């Protein structure tokens, strides 16, 4: 656990809006060991994309990091405090070269007026002192790596001439063009056909393994998480409510919100009349949230939830959750029966 490539400590991010200051991230702690994959899961608006953008230094102009640290340690180099870098330093020394990002919607993340070849070359030339011909050669090689057929021909194509899956491959090619050490994938398969999703995940995984890249997946698709993640962090209303290894969070979830998320995942093991949904909607993050933000939607909430925000309780060395249910004097409550049964089946099947 000691060789962390990324460590986020007490990160708080807020956005100035006309309705008031929105506290999108209210104190996030994350650790990512080198070469591993972390999945951040949560519903829309939980702050997972904002966390990613804060790490990338691309928060929109009305957003700001209020406090906290983002410590990034590239291989064989000293630790960088990313939150202290200016925009210019970020673009020059971090973006695209140390940390890259794959965006959610490949239909909109490529410039429609520039050929894909030029867009890849542009990224290479931004960070490497190579000739245009060499950059061109590298770009073709990258397209081959993301399994695009006839890469020389494709270089001259414009985004609108490619399918969604192809575009996402191009986006991945651009993201890895300067061999970054950390790759952030913000819902990389959400906008794609189901048949292509698995292929894209495969490509990312094989590149990650061959290049030794650490990865953060931002997703609300627990199927993706199960496939790729070593570690999982569950976010709700701008906070991490549960985190641990993928096995711990999947097979031994402790937070009622994680129970809800897992129950809402369709399963082939159980015959269900209706798919479970978590009741209610997330709270507004304008102003302070008092007590546990999830309490109003939580069937297992305790009296204390409405007054005091629960701290992170340690379940194991790697596993912790922010719920008063883990307090020693709390009633012993486990996951709902249907979910407990499902988890038992999964556990047995996967050993």
């Amino acid at each position, binding site marked *: 656990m000691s060789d962390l490539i990324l460590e986020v400590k007490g990160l708080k991010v807020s956005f100035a809006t006309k309705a008031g200051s929105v506290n999108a991230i209210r104190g996030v702690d994350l650790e990512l060991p080198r070469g591993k994959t972390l999945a951040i899961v949560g519903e829309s608006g939980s702050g997972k994309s904002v966390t990613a953008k804060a790490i990338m230094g691309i928060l929109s102009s009305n957003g700001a990091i209020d406090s906290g640290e983002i410590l990034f340690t590239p291989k064989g180099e000293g630790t960088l405090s990313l939150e202290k870098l200016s925009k*210019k330093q970020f673009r020059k020394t971090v973006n695209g070269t140390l940390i890259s990002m794959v965006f959610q919607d490949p239909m909109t993340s490529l410039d429609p*007026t520039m050929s894909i070849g030029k867009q890849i070359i542009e990224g290479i030339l931004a960070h490497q002192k190579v000739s245009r011909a060499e950059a061109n050669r590298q770009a073709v090689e990258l397209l081959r790596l993301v399994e695009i057929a006839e890469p020389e021909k494709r270089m001259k194509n414009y985004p609108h001439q490619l399918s969604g899956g192809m575009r996402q491959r191009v986006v991945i090619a651009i993201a890895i063009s300067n061999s970054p050490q950390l790759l952030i994938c913000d819902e990389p398969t959400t906008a794609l056909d189901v048949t292509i999703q698995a292929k894209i995940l495969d490509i990312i995984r094989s590149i990650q393994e061959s290049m030794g890249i650490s990865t953060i997946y931002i997703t609300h698709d627990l199927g993706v998480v199960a496939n790729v993640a070593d570690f999982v962090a569950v976010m709700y209303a701008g906070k991490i409510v549960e985190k641990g290894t993928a096995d711990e969070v999947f097979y031994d979830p402790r937070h009622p919100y994680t129970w809800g998320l897992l129950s809402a995942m369709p399963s082939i093991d159980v015959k269900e009349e209706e798919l479970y949904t978590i009741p209610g909607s997330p709270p507004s993050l304008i102003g302070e949230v008092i007590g546990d933000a999830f309490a109003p939607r939580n069937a297992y909430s305790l009296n204390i939830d409405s007054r005091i925000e629960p701290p992170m309780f340690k379940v194991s060395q790697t596993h912790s959750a922010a719920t008063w249910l883990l307090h020693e004097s709390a009633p012993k409550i486990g996951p709902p029966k249907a979910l407990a049964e499902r988890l038992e089946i999964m556990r047995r099947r996967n050993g």
Partner: protein
Amino acid sequence: MAKYIAKRSALAVATLIAIILLLFLLLELMPGSPFNIDKVPFDTRAMIMEHYGLDRPVMERFAKYLANMLKGDFGISYSLSKKTPITALLAIRLPVSIRLGVQAVLLGTIFGLALGMAAAIWHGKAMDTIATVVSVLGVSLPSYVFALTLSYFAGFRFQLAPMLYQASSPIYSSVLPTISLSMFTIATVARFTRTELLEILGSDYMLFAESKGISGAALFFRHALRNALIPIITVLAPLIVALMTGSLVVERIFSIPGIGSLLVSAIQANDYNVIIALSFIYSAMYIFIMLVLDILYGIIDPRIRITKEGE
């Protein structure tokens, strides 16, 4: 692309012929004739009409006109400047109007783009407010009001620039008319540039370009501006037309001997040939500008270029 341009050009020629026909028919409906002078006896008037062939049926005159036009002959002026070939009139006046138009289009586009860009870059700051005020004024003030105000204050009261056009110093004396004419273009282009850029600056592909490490001028000009130009070109076409018609009034106010003021006088005097020739020139310029802008589109936007190549 060549095939596309050929197709568009053929269409342009057909449109022009239709426009001339329409003009002939409309002039036929207009009361009076170029020789409507009470002092001249009726018989003499009929004789003149016969002399110029104006007693012939309209379709016959139309055919003859087209045939002459193909030879570069627009006929003669009946009343404004007696028996002068229109080509000779145009040779003097057309360059003046075209130069004024080109000056106004250039000024309008360049200043409009710059103002819009500044407003988008400093969004929400003082620059943005200035651009908004200029836009609202430029769009809501008719060009003749602006021209008169400018002529009075800048030309007469403070004598910053000549009030009237002088052929001896065509650039200096056309400063005020150029500004008056380009005001509407500046305002509209600035407004569109600002809106488009703001939308583009917040788009995913800009964020993705930033996440590759692109910043500053490269980010702005390579990615943002190029994408913003596409819709701006769309508004530019009607703007240039508005500018051409606006020149009718502005040429009068600054007494510029161009084709705009000539057309106004020609209509008042029923000078058929002059009206048709000038209307034809305006239409031809309009169609030509649309064609040029269409081709520009293709150069900037690959999505259009590729579809057209497929045609």
